[in-house]
């Protein structure tokens, strides 16, 4: 019985206590790329252990705003980072853009109907379209502003199936639950076996991802060093593998 109690106690208390931790909150679309970048960074900085946290940029911002112990924030759009800056949550002088991305419309792989343009989405062939929630998901914001610019938002919004983050939109399309979806080019590449890209959406401004150390970080040095690493050529090569472009 005592052996079991010691074991249980050990489980409860387990966790890294040795290396200094660096918590990185990154947009969902960066999931796979950052999972490859983190060990690369750790190999070069053995005293640092990286904890990755992925969600929609809006959700990540709220966590930081409410005091979550995050050290680095990488968002999928400028709007969220500007909000972070306005709230004094990031170190504005170290903020920089590190990749670019594209907005694409995808359909399920076996689907016969494939829209050639945004106008096609207004036809009855497309009943359900997966779009990230504009209030908190950058890909949704890009989609909404682009559609508004061409006057198609009113026609397409009723068909919108809102997703909590871009990966959920991707999943809906992969599963065939929706007829089409708006995701990043990099996400479409991740599931090439289940979805196919119909066309790339021309956005008004290029899609640029910013990254910055968080103001309240307890590990400012490592945070800055990670931000610089992500902007390096070495990291750019890894990111390019996943379809991210130069900023």
């Amino acid at each position, binding site marked *: 019985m005592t052996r079991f109690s010691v074991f249980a106690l050990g489980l409860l208390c387990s966790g890294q206590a040795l290396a200094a931790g660096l918590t990185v909150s990154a947009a969902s679309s960066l999931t796979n790329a950052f999972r490859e970048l983190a060990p690369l960074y750790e190999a070069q900085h053995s005293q640092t252990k990286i904890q990755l946290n992925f969600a929609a940029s809006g959700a990540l911002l709220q966590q930081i*705003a409410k005091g979550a112990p995050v050290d680095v924030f990488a968002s999928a759009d400028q709007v969220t980072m500007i909000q972070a800056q306005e709230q004094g949550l990031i170190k504005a002088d170290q903020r920089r853009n590190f990749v670019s991305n594209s907005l694409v419309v995808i359909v399920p792989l076996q689907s016969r109907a494939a829209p050639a343009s945004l106008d096609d989405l207004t036809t009855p062939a497309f009943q359900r379209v997966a779009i990230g929630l504009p*209030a908190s998901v950058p890909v949704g914001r890009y989609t909404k502003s682009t559609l508004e610019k061409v006057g198609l938002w009113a026609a397409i919004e009723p068909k919108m*199936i*809102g997703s909590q983050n871009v990966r959920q939109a991707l999943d809906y399309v992969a*599963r065939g639950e929706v007829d089409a979806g708006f995701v990043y080019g990099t996400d479409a590449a991740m599931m090439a076996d289940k979805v196919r890209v119909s066309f790339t959406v021309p956005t008004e401004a290029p899609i640029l991802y910013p990254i910055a150390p968080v103001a309240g970080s307890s590990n400012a040095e490592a945070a800055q060093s990670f931000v610089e690493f992500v902007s390096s050529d070495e990291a750019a090569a890894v990111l390019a593998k996943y379809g991210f472009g130069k900023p």
Partner: protein
Amino acid sequence: MTQAWIPLALTLKVAGWATLLNLFLGVTTGYVLARKRFPGRDLLDAVLTLPMVMPPTVLGYYLLVLLGRNGPIGEWLVSNFGINLIFTWQAAVVAATIVAFPLTFKAARASFEVVEPQYEQAARVLRVGELALFFRVTLPLAWRGILAGLLLSFARAAGEFGATLMVAGSMPGKTQTLSIAVYEAVQAGQDDLANFLVLVTSVTCIAVLLAAGRLMPGRVPGQS
């Protein structure tokens, strides 16, 4: 702040239907498991209790796979009835019913087990048929425990989030229930709206519990 009323109405509608479904499913299942002996009865009980202990997102995932357009049940529904459940309020009802089902059926089973079989036997000898004696003898003696289970069921159904999000999505006016609305308001940094939604949810829950307390009569003579 009118944004709160639509999710509230939707939550009550979804939870209401889920509880009604559980009234029939849970009471029937509870009765069968309480009264009938058969091999594997305990195993069946455990399996039926699973939705209560399973993480809602896991449950939601199973439901999505089963009910989705390419899933076994979903495909059958689409090809035979042209019905796609995903992203409908009916899917939210399915999710809410399943997660809340164990609460009803376990309470029902326990309540029926406490009713002495002798009462049912006495009714039989007095020539009252099986269905009639269930409504005249068994249920009146078991209903308070069942009602307690139903209330818990309702609360669980109203608060259901994980599984609902997966199969019903979040569509304002159609499937965006209160818990999902709160979640999204927080994600979007709309704290005022989040606070208001949380307040509405809390007041509603308290009101339901108070009303239920009123409904329960005083001690039935002869019962403890």
